[in-house]
C-alpha cells in the first residue's frame, strides 16, 4: 500500500450513461464489415475464405478493444458486456479461419510464424472468454484484446500462403509440440494480464504505471530509432518485392534496405514525446513534487497524439511507394508487409498508452469491477500452474522431435535455450511462491517478467537470433 498522496489527475470526462460509443462502435463494425463484404464480392471467390474470416475476427476484436477502452474513458459498465459479446463473435470467426486453413492444407496450422500467430490469437481469445466467464475477471480483455489485435495486424502483413512442409516438419510431433507451445504461451499471456489486473486492484501506484508505460513506449521507439534512423533524418525500411510478395534480399539472409526521407525525424519526435513523461516522473521523484506528475499525464496524452501522427505518416509513406537504397542503384518499392514489427511495435505502444489513460481516469471503476486481489493473485498462480506443465511438455516433445530429426535432443539452439530460460523463470516463480511464500506484488512482477521472456522466446528469437528453429 502506498502511503503517498494520490497523484493529481487530469479531470476525467464526465460519466455518461449514454450509448454513444456503443452506437459508434456498432456503426464502425458494420461499416467495416460492409466494406469488407463489398471488397470481397468484387474480388470474387468464396466469401468464407480464411483471410475474410480473419478480417472479420480482427474487426470484432478491435471492436471489443474499443469498447473496453470506451469503458475506461466513460466508466459505462454496459460496454464491458458488449465487449465480451464482440470477443465471442471474433472468436467464432477466428475459429472458422483456423478450421478453413486446416481444411485447405490438410494439416493443423502450425508451420510458420503466421500460422503460429493464428493459433496463438485463437487460444488467447478462448482463454479470455474462460477467464471472464469462469473466474469473473471481466476486464481481462482490455489487455488481451489489444494484444490479439496487434497479433492479427502482424498476421495481415506476414506472408500467409500455405507452404508445403519441408521434410523436417513432417512429423506428428510437430503438432504435439506446437499445440503445447501455443497453449502455454497463451496461458502465460493470460497470467500476465491477470498479474496486471492484480497490480491495478492492489493500488499499485498510478505514477509507477506511468513510469513503466513510458519506459515501454520509449523502449519501442528507441529500438526503432537506434536500428532504423538514417543520417539526414531518414528511416530505413526493408524493400519489398511486390511480385513474389517477399522482402528483397541482397544475399542469403541479408535484406535490402531503402531510406524514406525525413520520416526518421518524426520517430525521434515521438521518442521525445515518450521520454517527456518519463523525465517528468523522475523529476517529480527527485523534487518530491507531485505537480510534475500532472504535467506528465498531460504529456502522455500529447504523446499518444504524436504517436498517432507518426503512425499515420508511416502507413501513408510506406504503403505503395518507392524509395532509393544506399546499397544499390534504383528505386525499390516498399510495403507495410515488409515492416511488420515496426508497425506492430507502434500499435502496441499506442495501446499501452491508452491503457494507461484508462487506468488514470477510471481506476476506481476498474477496481470495483475486479474480483478481490486475493482471488486475482490465486488465479494468476493457477494459470501459471497450468502454463508450467505445458511449457515442460513443449520442451520435452521438442527435444524428442529434434532427436528424431537432427539426431540430438539438445543442441543449445537459441530457441531451445530461450525456452529453457522461460522454464527456469517460471520455475523460479513457483519456488519463490511455494517455499518463500511470495504473494501479491512480488509474485505479480515475476509473472510479468515471465511473459516478457515468453514474448522474446516466441518472436524475438525468431527474428533477432540465428538458429535451426528457422520456420517459427
Amino acid at each position: 500500500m502506498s502511503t503517498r498522496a494520490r497523484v493529481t489527475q487530469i479531470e476525467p470526462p464526465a460519466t455518461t450513461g449514454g450509448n454513444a460509443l456503443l452506437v459508434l462502435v456498432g456503426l464502425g463494425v458494420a461499416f467495416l464489415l460492409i466494406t469488407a463484404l463489398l471488397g470481397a464480392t468484387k474480388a470474387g471467390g468464396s466469401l468464407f475464405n480464411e483471410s475474410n474470416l480473419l478480417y472479420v475476427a480482427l474487426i470484432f476484436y478491435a471492436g471489443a478493444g474499443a469498447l473496453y477502452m470506451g469503458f475506461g474513458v466513460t466508466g459505462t459498465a454496459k460496454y464491458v458486456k458488449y465487449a465480451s459479446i464482440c470477443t465471442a463473435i471474433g472468436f467464432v470467426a477466428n475459429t472458422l479461419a483456423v478450421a478453413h486453413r486446416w481444411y485447405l492444407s490438410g494439416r493443423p496450422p502450425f508451420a510458420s510464424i503466421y500460422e503460429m500467430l493464428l493459433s496463438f490469437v485463437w487460444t488467447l481469445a478462448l482463454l479470455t472468454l474462460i477467464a471472464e466467464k469462469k473466474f469473473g475477471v471481466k476486464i481481462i480483455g482490455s489487455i488481451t484484446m489489444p494484444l490479439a489485435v496487434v497479433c492479427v495486424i502482424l498476421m495481415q502483413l506476414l506472408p500467409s500462403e500455405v507452404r508445403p512442409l519441408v521434410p523436417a516438419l513432417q512429423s506428428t510431433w510437430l503438432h504435439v509440440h506446437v499445440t503445447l507451445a501455443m497453449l502455454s504461451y497463451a496461458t502465460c499471456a493470460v497470467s500476465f494480464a491477470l498479474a496486471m489486473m492484480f497490480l491495478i486492484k492492489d493500488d499499485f501506484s498510478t505514477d509507477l504505471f506511468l513510469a513503466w508505460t513510458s519506459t515501454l513506449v520509449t523502449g519501442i521507439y528507441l529500438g526503432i530509432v537506434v536500428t532504423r534512423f538514417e543520417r539526414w533524418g531518414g528511416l530505413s525500411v526493408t524493400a519489398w518485392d511486390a511480385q513474389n510478395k517477399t522482402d528483397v534480399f541482397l544475399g542469403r539472409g541479408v535484406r535490402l534496405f531503402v531510406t524514406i526521407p525525413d520520416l526518421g525525424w518524426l520517430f525521434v519526435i515521438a521518442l521525445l514525446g515518450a521520454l517527456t513523461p518519463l523525465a517528468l516522473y523522475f523529476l517529480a521523484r527527485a523534487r518530491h513534487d507531485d505537480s510534475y506528475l500532472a504535467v506528465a499525464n498531460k504529456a502522455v496524452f500529447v504523446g499518444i497524439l504524436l504517436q498517432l501522427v507518426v503512425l499515420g505518416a508511416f502507413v501513408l509513406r510506406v504503403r505503395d511507394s518507392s524509395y532509393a537504397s544506399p546499397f544499390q542503384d534504383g528505386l525499390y518499392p516498399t510495403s507495410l508487409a515488409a515492416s511488420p514489427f515496426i508497425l506492430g511495435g507502434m500499435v502496441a505502444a499506442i495501446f499501452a498508452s491508452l491503457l494507461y489513460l484508462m487506468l488514470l481516469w477510471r481506476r476506481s471503476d476498474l477496481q470495483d469491477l475486479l474480483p478481490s486481489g486475493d482471488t486475482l493473485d490465486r488465479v494468476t498462480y493457477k494459470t501459471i500452474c497450468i502454463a508450467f506443465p505445458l511449457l515442460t511438455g513443449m520442451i520435452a516433445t521438442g527435444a524428442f522431435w529434434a532427436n528424431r530429426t537432427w539426431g540430438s535432443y539438445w543442441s543449445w539452439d537459441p530457441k531451445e535455450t530461450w525456452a529453457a530460460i522461460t522454464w527456469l523463470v517460471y520455475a523460479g516463480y513457483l519456488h519463490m511462491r511455494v517455499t518463500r511464500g511470495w504473494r501479491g506484488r512480488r509474485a505479480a512482477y515475476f509473472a510479468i517478467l515471465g511473459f516478457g521472456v515468453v514474448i522474446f522466446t516466441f518472436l524475438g528469437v525468431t527474428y533477432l537470433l540465428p538458429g535451426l528453429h528457422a520456420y517459427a
Partner: protein
Amino acid sequence: MAFAVLSIPKRIYRTLANLRTGVVLLILVVIASALGTFVLQRPVTEPDKLQAAYSPQILRWLDRLTLTDIFHSWWFLSLLALVSLSIIFVSVERFPNSWRFYARPYRKTDSHFRAANPHKVEIPIRNADQGLNAAERALKKLRWPVERIVDNGEASLYSEKHRFSVMAVYLIHASLLLIFLGGIIDGVFGFSGFMSIPQGQQRNTIELKNGKMKQLPFSVRCNSAGQEDYADGSPKKWWSKLAVVDDGRETQTKEIVVNDPLVYHGLRFYQASYWIDGKKVDGLRIAYSGLDSKAIPLELRFNQPVNLDPETTVTLIEYMPDAFVRDGQVFKKSDSIENLAFALEVVDHANNSTAKVWLFPAEHNVVGAENVKFQFQNPTAAKDIDFSPVTGLEVSYEPGQWFVWAGCLLMGVGLFVAFYTVHMRIWAVELADAQGKLVLWIGGTSNKNKDRFEQKFSAVVAEIRNELDTNTPAARPLVQEKKERPELTMAGTK
C-alpha cells in the same frame, strides 16, 4: 584450527543446501545461457561468418573468455554441476521432514493445532459418540476414507486424500537429475558425426564433429536413395534404403526418411541430406536405329545387357565424368563433370565380334561405331542420364537419451501430481466447548487450492449436520447406543 578445517565441507554443504544459493545459481545459468544465444557459438557457426561478425581482436578475446563456446566451457558445465549438487543437497535437507510427515501422518489433533486450524466448525451434540458416528457416516457417504483413532480411551476420526501429493516435489527434482545424468552420459560416451554413402556402396567410417574419423564395427550400405519434390519444386521427401552389413551378413534393412532413422546397436542413422556428385551413373536413356534408320528408344542399366536383335546385345559398361579422345582412343581427364562419356559394349553373337562405342553427349559425338550395324544416338537431356545419388547420414550414439526420456516422463507425472492433486485432511473429535457443552469439532487442511478445499469442507460439514439431524432421533436412550456399537466397530475396521 582442526575444527575450522573440518567445517569447510560442512559449510559448502550448508551453502549449497540453501535455497537462496540455488536461486543465485539459476540466475547465473540464465545469464550465461542468454549470453550464449547472443554471441555466435563456434560449434554451430561457420568460421568465416564468425570472422565477418567480429573483429579479429574481439574474436580473440571472446575465444579466450570461452564465450564462443559457452555451452561446452568448463565453467558452464561446473555451474550445471553446482545446480545439480544444490538440488541434491536441498532435497537431502528437506526430505527427512517430508518423509516423517508422509510416513507418520498427523492423525490426532491437539488443542494448539485445533486453535490454529484455518477450516473448522463446532456442532453441538447431545451425547457421546453421536457426533463421531454421524461424521463417519457422512464422510463415507462422500467417499472419504475414514479412520477411527482411539488413543487413551479418547476416540477421534481422521480422513485424508492424496497424501502422496506432498512427495511429488522430490519426484520432479529427481527427474531433473535423471535428465542431467542422461546429458552427462552422452557427453562422456556419446558421439555424433556424418557419413556419406554413394548409392550401391558401403561405408564403415564416420566423420565426427571434431573432424576425427571413427571406425564402426559394421558397415552400412546404401541400396538406393532419392528425393521427391512438391509441385513448386521445393523438396518434399528424402529417402534412403539402407542395409547393415555385420560380419559379412546383411543383418538389418530399412528405408529411412527425414524423421525416421535406422537404429542398430544404439547407433542411429538419420537422413540428413541427399545429393548427386556425378561420379557414377546407374542408367541411360538413348535411342538407336538399325538399317531402316528408324529411331527406337533404348533404356540401359549399368552392366545389364539388352538385346537389340536376336544376335546382338548392348551393355552400358563404362562412364567418365570428364573424357577426351586422342587418336581414336578415349582417356579420362578429371573427376569433375565436364565432358561426359559413356561406353557401350556391343556384342554380335553371330560373328562373335565385340565393339566398344563411346557416346559424348556434350560434343554430340559418337566414337568407335564404324563396324557396328546399329547407330547409337547421344542422350539429349540431363534427365536421360540417371546419375547415382549419394545419401548423407547423420550418425549419433546417445546411450544417455533413455535417462532423458525417463526423466521427462517422470517429470510429467511429478508435475501432474504436484499441481493437480491436493493433499486434503479432515479431523473430527468430540470435546467440551468453552461453556462445557459437548460439541463435535471438525477441522480440515489442504496443501494447495484452498478455495476449492473450502467448498469440499463445507460439503462435508453440511453432510454431517444432515446426518445428525435425520439419522439420530432426539434423546435416544443409552440402550440404543449399545446396540449401535458393534455396527460401528465393524465399519471402523473395514
